């Protein structure tokens, strides 16, 4: 055993949620949102292609269509969660100063939420015809 201070084995200490106390939540959510992003991104590649060259009323009609708007909201949620998790890993890998790292991780969360809120508001406004 590594330490005499505990009767617990190293395996026992990391079982359940592990030493970081959040388990594989980050990893798993990154994969789940990767799956949803894959499906939704393929749909929106076609939606965006269909918008090319369309005048404003036609573009608004497409984006405001309830079916497309719901998918857009799901994509905004899925993409923002995914990009927040991904950027957090990048920050944790390259920013080694503790205070700066915490600030960057918080800024990353703010950025993802701001992008998500602005995009979702725009889609809802287009949809409800404001």
């Amino acid at each position, binding site marked *: 055993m590594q*330490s*005499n*201070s505990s009767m617990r084995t190293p395996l026992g200490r990391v079982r359940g949620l592990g030493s970081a106390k959040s388990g594989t939540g980050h990893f798993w959510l990154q*994969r789940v949102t*990767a799956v949803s*992003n*894959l499906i939704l*991104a393929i749909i929106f*590649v076609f939606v*965006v*292609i*269909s918008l*090319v*060259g369309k005048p*404003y009323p036609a*573009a*608004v009609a497409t*984006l405001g269509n309830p079916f497309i708007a719901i998918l857009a909201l799901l994509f905004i949620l899925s*993409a*923002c969660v995914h*990009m927040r998790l*991904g*950027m957090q890993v*990048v920050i944790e890998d390259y920013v080694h100063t503790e205070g700066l790292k915490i600030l960057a991780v918080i800024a990353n969360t703010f950025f993802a939420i701001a*992008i998500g809120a*602005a*995009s979702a*508001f*725009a*889609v809802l*406004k*287009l949809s409800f015809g*404001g």
Partner: protein
Amino acid sequence: MGGPLDRRMILAEVKPAARPLSPHLQIYRWSWTMAMSIAHRVTGTGLYLGTVLIAAWLVAAASGPAAYDAAQAVAGSIIGLLVLFLYSFALLHHMVGGLRHFIWDMGHGFDPQTRTNLAKYSVFVSGGLTLLVWIAALALR
């Protein structure tokens, strides 16, 4: 006696030796898997920053015809089209790279030839898909 804390205090008095640092990018010979791993991060970061433009475009569309036409004019300029082309390639490259990671997550494709091929072909597949998307978009214009 002699727990972890005591040992650290003793070690702190020893002058740090000039130990070799762990090797970094400039040490390794470039491989396809290494290049595509870096590309996955770079494209992910690019997609992250580019969401500002997508959000701005959506807000412009929600603001009215004048703002939408202005956003479309920016998107349709030479620089706008170049950014859109790179963004679409980053998206498809990150997507195909993600599929490669799914294969690895399932525990497949780890032998040297397969992992190199997976990485190598992800460039050609994502590049080909990008061209297909742009051919479709230009045909519909």
